[in-house]
């Protein structure tokens, strides 16, 4: 096992961990809003959040690349005011993967919220508890399986992300080259042996994550029956 292999995997894991943590923090309020808001506007938001499920990753990657490029106003603005260059950087692929994984986190948590009887929230309100206390003490503890599903799926999906990262990350070894890109890269260079190593690792890794999700949910359902 060489240093390149380890670094590439480390970048994959770092990207997936950060994406998951950040999405968890923004996913909960978004999912809450989408479940309980009565505004019509929320369908538009819902559609936007789910776009990455149907959009080719290259399309999203292409627009993000344009946005991050210093030749256009947003990239130029970031560059001149904050001295930040997002294209072909780790921060760039992080933002890309946050946007791309939004539906995996938000939809999972949202389905958790909508499966709870609405009367739980009402009951907590009539007991004099604020919205924040209600979310923290009543709603979130009762959607643990949904939260675990969201966390694991986001993590696993980021590990397997390819298109967006290739478009905006540029496949720079030690910086933006992740394991999923490395497979493609090694195949291009006819290093089938190396490609196989990455591929087997990714395969096992994804399998274990999904195994964890399903066994936790199964245990939880068993427990709930009593």
């Amino acid at each position, binding site marked *: 096992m060489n240093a390149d292999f380890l670094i590439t995997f480390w970048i994959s894991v770092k990207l997936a961990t950060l994406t998951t943590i950040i999405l968890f923090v923004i996913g909960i309020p978004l999912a809450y809003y989408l479940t309980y808001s009565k505004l019509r506007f929320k369908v538009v938001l819902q559609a936007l959040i789910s776009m990455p499920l149907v959009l080719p990753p290259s399309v999203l990657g292409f627009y993000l690349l344009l946005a991050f490029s210093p030749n256009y106003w947003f990239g130029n603005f970031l560059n001149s005011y904050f001295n930040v260059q997002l294209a072909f950087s780790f921060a760039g692929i992080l933002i890309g993967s946050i946007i791309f994984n939004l539906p995996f986190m938000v939809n999972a948590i949202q389905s958790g919220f909508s499966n709870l009887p609405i*009367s739980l929230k009402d*009951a907590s309100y009539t007991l004099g508890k604020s919205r924040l206390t209600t979310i923290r003490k009543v709603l979130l503890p009762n959607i643990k399986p949904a939260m675990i599903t969201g966390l694991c799926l986001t993590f696993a999906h980021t590990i397997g992300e390819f298109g967006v990262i290739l478009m905006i990350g540029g496949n720079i070894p030690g910086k933006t080259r992740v394991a999923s890109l490395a497979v493609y890269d090694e195949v291009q260079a006819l290093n089938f042996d190396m490609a196989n190593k990455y591929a087997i690792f990714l395969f096992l890794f994804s399998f274990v994550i999904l195994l964890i999700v399903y066994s936790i949910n199964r245990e939880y359902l068993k427990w709930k029956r*009593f």
Partner: protein
Amino acid sequence: MEEILIDLHVKKLIHTTNGDELLELKLTIPRFGFITFFGKSGVGKTTLLRMIAGLTNPDSGYIKVNNEIWFDSDKKINIKPQQRNIGFVFQDYALFPNMTVKEHLLYAQFYKERGYVSELLEIFHLKGLCERKPAKLSGGQQQRLAVARALARKPQILLLDEPLSALDNETRTILQDEILLAHEKFSATTLLVSHDINEVVKLSDYIYVIENGEINKQGCPKEIFNNTKFQVLAQVLKIEGTILTISANDTITKIEVSEFEIRDLKVNDKILIPTKIVNPMILRINTS
């Protein structure tokens, strides 16, 4: 004269199976009373409780409690449910699956008083079940917990939305007694929504009958339900000549009627049979 606790006049368009209907209710509730809203399902009884609780907003009108305005569409006042000192028992109980019996009561308390929690546990026979979560309680125990939780913050108004409809008759009777006991002990003003006549007569001091979006009748149970005659409500199942097969009180029986009486009757009609019993013989059937 009794002191008035709640004074309200609200209008709200509600969606019923027969299309939209305007619900317009104007009523007052005396302090410490046990008041029942009686009527068919979908008539707006639950909506009324939810409006008092602040969970549903009236389209217009006002709700005054203790001379304090909780809702007023003209003055644009709408106090949040959290700030209305009420206890609400939901039809599905709305217990929190993640909390034990004791945690429910501690969560619900406004001022933490362990003594009061044990008192509630005692009254509602939940003492031995302290560490259990709702999924491990029977229907009756869940219902007791829902009432105990609603009382934990010492509400001035207790709102009960068909709290016993999911229980069997025996449990129902026991819980009716407990609710009555709690009502007297904690001197809350209790508002009950129900469509069970026995329950309503047993529990309430005063009844509002809601029908077609408005208060159709009001009075004490005697005035609303008691008739001087003893009568049976039945449904016509079959008509053969002048012999009717009817279903009354879960019993199928045949009665003979005159041709005059039968002339407009159809199968499925609901009929009222006043009986002229002068001196009925009564057999006691409960053995306990």
